[in-house]
């Protein structure tokens, strides 16, 4: 890694040039060496720099997105005509289960965490995430879980009970073999990864912000990741409990979900949806942060109503835990109880409405730079708005009696997930690609990408509202010709293929721009937050000099003294720990060196998890390598401890 060249900012004016004198080249080089990972193949497995891990994470989740998309194309080709014979019923069931599981568990939440682990330290002025080795372990665990699931799918052991696997269908009697066990264990992998990333992000956000960055001055994206990470801590345990109970029911014969022995089939639904509803908000809330970042930069003004935006996020997070029964309206739960959840499901529209109104106000009173990131963000106001409104329809118990488990729900969920998460995510990729790689994505290809995606999406999914009302239920591998659903299904397939072309354009854009894209300065879009103050791509240590923060948009607001914090060591991986609310200087901390042991611990954990699909003894015996690997991981190095003690200030 070489020392990055001095910034070549396009605009004149001192407000863009924030780095000041910077470090002398010798010190910058030392800092670079300190934070770099070792070279070579061992070095590749030992890497723990948060940007390196995050880029791998983003690529891996994007590969899963592509795989999930291919599965979707297979389904659409099967359903394009009545009495389709492309996929057998068994294969179709596996395909839609894999599509849902991939998109929900292997793409939607992890990609948000991946982008966050890259950007959050840069936005808060930190040189690293907290717990960098655990960050690496979380990536490996996630990857191994995904590989396990796809390996099973290619072996014809793919799960086939749907992405939410209702018992008794997914239970021991009606899903023989190991298919559902692989699915349930994949949940364990991905939820462990998500929990760890949540811990990393919460700690980074609360304890490692640059001095002066009070909670009140934190970028809105950082707020969304804080809120999301807390939600993860409360939501993930519910699904881990549910899936573990399912595994024990299937492996050793417990009776959690066996009505014949005092269990309850509905217990699964409660446990799963208690996680499942917050899960969709885990997917939805980080992109709200993308929206705020992009709208601020491309309207050339701060987002309207910062306190309202933050309270809206927190309100959404709390309310999200009170909605889960709206997935269960068709069961025989008491009517009055269900109506409570209707009220809650309607109520959660209010904080989202506040956010939408604030963004529109920002656009209204701003000056607009209509580039590709903003286009993707604007699609939110069409697609997510439509999806949210169909969500209000589904929130009503009586209406849900007709609409539940039909293609209307399929349409709704894709409108909110793509409109609310994927479109802003693509906008975020276009926005931060220069920061990740140092090059701009092609604006022309970006516009083609956007319009094909937008048009293809609406052509694919709008007809599904009509299909649902016309009686087409979900998860059917085919339908008779006389139902009259053929034409709309064919239209939906055409739309899906259009989406595929647009994603292909995105891939071409990325691959081409990596080599031949226009070189990016540190702040090509003229943004106001701290990540735009460092080079593109950032040096391994992020900030040559840790900034002092005096406002919400440090790069836009007039500089104030002091500009930087000095005294952080360049020879050691030293970070600044600050207080939770006001980011007052607290102490300095040394982060660990690069190590292959997180990777090896992940391998050992994978063996434990996969083994426990086949025998409960795996939990006992495979725990030994896990214990050994994690012990070596945490074993302190004598010389490092000695150096640390020497640098301590004694009273």
């Amino acid at each position, binding site marked *: 890694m070489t020392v990055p060249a001095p910034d070549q900012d396009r605009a004149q004016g001192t407000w863009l040039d924030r780095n000041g004198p910077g470090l002398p080249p010798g010190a910058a080089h030392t800092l670079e060496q300190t934070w770099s990972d070792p070279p070579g193949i061992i070095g590749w497995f030992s890497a723990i720099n948060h940007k390196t891990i995050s880029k791998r994470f983003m690529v891996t989740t994007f590969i899963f997105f592509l795989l999930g998309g291919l599965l979707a194309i297979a389904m659409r080709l099967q359903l394009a005509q009545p009495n389709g014979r492309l996929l057998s*019923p068994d294969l179709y069931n596996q395909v839609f289960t894999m599509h849902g599981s991939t998109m929900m568990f292997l793409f939607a939440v992890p990609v948000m965490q991946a982008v966050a682990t890259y950007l959050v330290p840069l936005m808060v002025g930190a040189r690293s995430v907290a717990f960098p080795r655990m960050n690496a372990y979380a990536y490996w665990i996630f990857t191994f879980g995904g590989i396990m699931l796809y390996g099973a799918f290619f072996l014809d052991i793919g799960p086939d009970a749907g992405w939410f696997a*209702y018992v008794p269908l997914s239970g021991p009697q009606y899903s023989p073999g190991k298919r559902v066990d692989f699915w349930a264990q994949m949940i364990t992998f991905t939820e462990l990864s998500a929990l760890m990333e949540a811990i990393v992000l919460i700690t980074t956000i609360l304890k490692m912000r640059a001095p002066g960055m009070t909670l009140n001055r934190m970028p809105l994206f950082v707020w969304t990741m804080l809120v999301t990470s807390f939600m993860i801590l409360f939501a993930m345990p519910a699904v881990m409990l549910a899936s573990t109970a399912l595994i024990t029911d299937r492996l050793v014969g417990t009776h959690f979900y066996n009505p014949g022995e005092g269990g309850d089939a509905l217990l699964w639904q409660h446990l799963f949806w208690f996680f499942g509803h917050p899960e969709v908000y885990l997917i939805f809330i980080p992109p709200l942060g993308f929206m705020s970042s992009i709208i601020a930069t491309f309207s050339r003004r701060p987002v309207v109503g910062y306190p309202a935006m933050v309270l809206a996020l927190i309100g959404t997070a709390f309310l999200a835990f009170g909605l889960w029964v709206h997935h269960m309206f068709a069961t025989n739960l008491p009517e009055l109880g269900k109506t409570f959840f209707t009220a809650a499901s309607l109520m959660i529209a209010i904080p989202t409405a506040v956010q939408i109104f604030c963004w529109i106000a920002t656009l*209204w009173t701003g000056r607009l730079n209509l580039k590709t990131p903003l286009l993707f963000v604007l699609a939110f106001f069409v697609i997510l708005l439509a999806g949210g409104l169909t969500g209000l329809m589904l929130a009503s118990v*009586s209406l849900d009696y007709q609409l539940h488990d039909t293609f209307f729900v399929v349409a709704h969920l894709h409108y909110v997930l793509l409109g609310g998460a994927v479109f802003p995510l693509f906008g975020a990729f276009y926005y931060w690609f220069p920061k990740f790689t140092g090059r701009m994505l092609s604006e022309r290809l970006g516009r083609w990408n956007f319009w094909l995606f937008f048009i293809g999406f609406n052509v694919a999914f709008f007809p599904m509202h009509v299909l649902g009302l016309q009686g087409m239920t979900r998860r059917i591998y085919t339908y008779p010709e006389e139902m009259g659903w053929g034409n709309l299904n064919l239209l939906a397939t055409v739309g899906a293929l259009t989406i595929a072309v647009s994603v292909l354009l995105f891939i071409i854009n990325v691959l081409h721009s990596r080599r031949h894209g226009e070189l990016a300065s540190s702040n090509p879009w003229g943004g106001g937050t701290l990540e735009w103050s460092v080079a593109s791509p950032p040096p391994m240590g992020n900030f040559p000099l840790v900034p002092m923060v005096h406002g919400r948009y440090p790069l836009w607001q007039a500089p104030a003294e002091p500009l930087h914090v000095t005294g952080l060591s360049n020879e050691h991986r030293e970070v600044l720990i600050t207080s939770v609310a006001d980011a007052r200087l607290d102490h300095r901390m040394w982060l660990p060196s690069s190590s292959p042991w997180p990777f090896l611990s992940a391998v050992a954990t994978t063996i434990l998890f996969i083994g426990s699909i086949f025998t409960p003894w795996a939990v006992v015996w495979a725990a030994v390598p896990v214990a050994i690997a994690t012990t070596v991981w945490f074993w302190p190095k004598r010389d490092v401890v000695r150096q640390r003690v020497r640098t301590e200030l004694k009273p």
Partner: protein
Amino acid sequence: MNAVFLDPRPLQDALRPAGVQAAHIGSLWNLTLGLCAVVFVLVLGACLVALWRAPRAGAGTEPDLSSLSRPERRTWRVIGWSTGLAAAGLLALLAADVWTSRALARLPLRDAVNIELVGHMWWWEARYRDADPSREFSTANELHIPVGRPVVVTLRSNDVIHSLWIPNLQGKKDLIPGRTATLRLRADRAGSYRGQCAEFCGLEHAMMALLVEAEPNDRYEAWAERQRQPAAEPVDAVARRGREVFLGKSCVMCHTISGTTANARFGPDLTHLAGRRTIASGMFPNNRGHLAGWIADPQSLKPGVNMPANNLPPDELQALLAYLETLK
């Protein structure tokens, strides 16, 4: 499969209510659709106006930081009022939903027909209940109900979770093993209505349909009376031979035909098979050709179904078909 194999073609459409329950839900749908459409137009309109009127800028344009020093009271007021309006709209939707729920629960149940429906993988078992047990009868996959009289359907499941959904008549309700649910509906217009299982239940979830014939009360009572009779004694020699085939081969292991020794409950009750319009749980027309294909190799029509292939010699198959045709 034939293009229009059932005449009159059954309806499966939530937007064409043929019964009071579906009509209540239909009204709520219209109200909600209208309200949501208005909101969509207003919000999207505001966004488009913002896009249209805002001056353009570039990356180098000086950002406008006036809002950091001067509070934007007018903007906040607009946002506040809009949020208030949104909350009011949501309250209206809540009230409409509560009103509809009450209406659904208040279906008068005088003189109701009681049907107990048990979901199987992948067919519907129906037992018509009566205060007098001798007047109860069983059927499968096709229900007849009287127009204008309420029908109380008790829902249980034999294996996994299914869901009964007849969109023209009512919303859906899940059939959950270990639990008993109830669905109340009433057909207010005569006709054929198609329902479908609406909860993923395995390999042939796509092919678990249900036909509901709503007819005037006297026609319904006549049908019910026919259903109560055991199977007619076959007059024809070929049909009698067909009955021997039925009892001597695999059929007797799973199916019931009252009036014979066939009394198994694993598959649908066939006592009055010939009176049904469809076979294979509402999927294929009930005619000789389809029935022959179904008996010979159900797996090619509905792969994964529990009924095995039957390699019958042609004369036995024909005799069996002749017998089944007598089961009116």
